[in-house]
């Protein structure tokens, strides 16, 4: 009787079940995270070092009067998006690989828990942690170069949310690729991260890119995310946003944020289905 009740369709599907499994999986990931306290301290130190390196590099181009354009805002707001991108791009695929290596993937598939919740839970804790790191990064940058421009926080948050949602979609799609290419996924993620770092101009204005590369940037929705996010928070100084008028960028980012998770998750299910049919899901 109890088994029947537990397995009733109402308890296994729907928003409540999805939320409950997401919460349980996120809690499990959090428990694992707390086992590595050095990681917490090290990630803070790492952010401080990276921000300091690029800020000091920017200052070497400053004029004697101390003017160096908007480089503080350009670097820090681009860096924030880069950190979130790093979280979502590889973490989901990496965790699937980890389940395969640990031999726990099979157990997950035996449970009736939502696969979507399983994927999202891989990055949910990281996102909270990255938010804290971002605040720390802003604090350090302020200490190094003085007060940073900070305008339109509401719209900035919306653009961050939508960009994040879009990168979740990229993360799902990348997890799908990881299922297919296995260990090569890590190398691919590295290459992709570096390519996006240049094409999305996280640490410099798009104007610095050669014309050919800038044309490619125009075809990447995430590039609009970076451009709109930092331009909005900097209060649209002269020349910003660089890729398109802000209204157009908001529409592109909204579509990216709404559609990319669906496309990414669909790609994941297709890859997963293929691997299950070919018997490759438990192989690594």
């Amino acid at each position: 009787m109890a088994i029947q009740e537990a397995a009733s369709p109402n308890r296994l599907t729907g928003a409540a079940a999805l939320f409950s499994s997401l919460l349980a999986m996120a809690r499990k990931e959090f428990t694992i995270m707390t086992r590595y306290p050095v990681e917490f301290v090290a990630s803070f130190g790492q952010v401080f070092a990276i921000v300091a390196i690029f800020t000091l590099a920017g200052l070497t181009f400053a004029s004697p009067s101390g003017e160096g354009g908007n480089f503080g805002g350009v670097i820090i707001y681009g860096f924030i998006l880069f950190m979130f991108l790093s979280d979502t791009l590889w973490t989901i695929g990496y965790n699937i690989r980890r389940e395969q290596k640990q031999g726990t993937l099979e157990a997950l598939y035996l449970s009736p828990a939502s696969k979507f919740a399983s994927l999202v839970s891989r990055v949910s804790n990281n996102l909270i942690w990255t938010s804290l790191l971002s605040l720390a990064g802003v604090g350090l940058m302020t200490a190094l170069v003085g007060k940073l421009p900070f305008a339109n926080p509401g719209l900035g948050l919306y653009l961050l949310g939508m960009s994040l949602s879009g990168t979740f979609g990229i993360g799902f799609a990348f997890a799908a690729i990881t299922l297919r290419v296995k260990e090569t996924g890590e190398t691919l993620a590295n290459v992709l991260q570096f390519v996006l770092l240049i094409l999305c101009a996280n640490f410099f204005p798009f104007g610095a890119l050669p014309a050919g590369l800038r044309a490619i940037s125009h075809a990447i929705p995430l590039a609009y995310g970076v451009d709109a996010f930092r331009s909005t928070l900097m209060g649209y100084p002269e020349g910003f946003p660089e890729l398109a008028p802000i209204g157009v960028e908001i529409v592109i980012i909204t579509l990216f944020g709404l559609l990319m998770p669906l496309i990414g998750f669909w790609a994941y299910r297709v890859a997963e289905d293929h691997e299950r049919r070919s018997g490759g899901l438990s192989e690594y």
Partner: protein
Amino acid sequence: MIAEASLGSKLSIILATARMRMLNVSRYKGQLFVEILIPIVFAAMPILLGRATGGAAAEANFLRNTGTANYPAFMLIGSSTFIIVTFAFWLVGYWIRFEQETGTLEAIYLTPTSRVWNAAGIALYSAIRSLISGSVAYMIGSLIFGVNPFQGQLLLALAFILIGLIPLFGMTLMFGALVMKVKEANSLVNLMQWTVSLLMGVFFPVSVFPPLMRLLALAFPPTWMVNGVRSALLGVGYFFEEWYLDLAVLWGFLLIAPLLGFWVFSGMERNIRRREGVGEY
């Protein structure tokens, strides 16, 4: 009673360890490609940032702040040295952890040799791999950013790198001891590679630091290494005005750091073997 290994045997351990790891990494061609890509992309960011924020005055401002107007070469040298330093930390510092993960640590401890020869083999492997990656990245990066890679005193620059490598490996051995103790190797290596990059002035001269931090930076061999290479190739100026004085400081590090590294590593290893066992992770 096993007789003390001859010098030839010790040398063969070094070569065999390096060869084994080279063979291992040759299976991952994508990874080798990324290693060349990293310094170029890494240098591209401050170069593009400088071009955008400095505009027409970028070169003049950079010259005033660093001693050279050739900022692409300055950044490329920094990022190529960064890859050498990073490799040293990942490969030598992570060495014991790597053996633990692959399950080969026990086999190493069963052999009648000191671990220091294995560590030397890993250092040789790290040196070969990072020098190739760093040099190729510098050449390709120079082509991309329109820099002459053969300007300045190349041999002197090479001397700074080769002499600087040994104290660097000594440092990473000390770091390896810390990794053995704390166990969270990934986090520590990640933190360390960025901290050392900051301290050695990967994209800026260390003169921008406040006095205490500058003193700390000067206690790191990579700081002398990167400044020596920049001075030899771009003429930014040695810390002690003359190249031989800076090189002498590196020689000083060369004598102290490996011995200190070995002493710390051996002490930590002995301590851990007595308490919880090195095989535990």
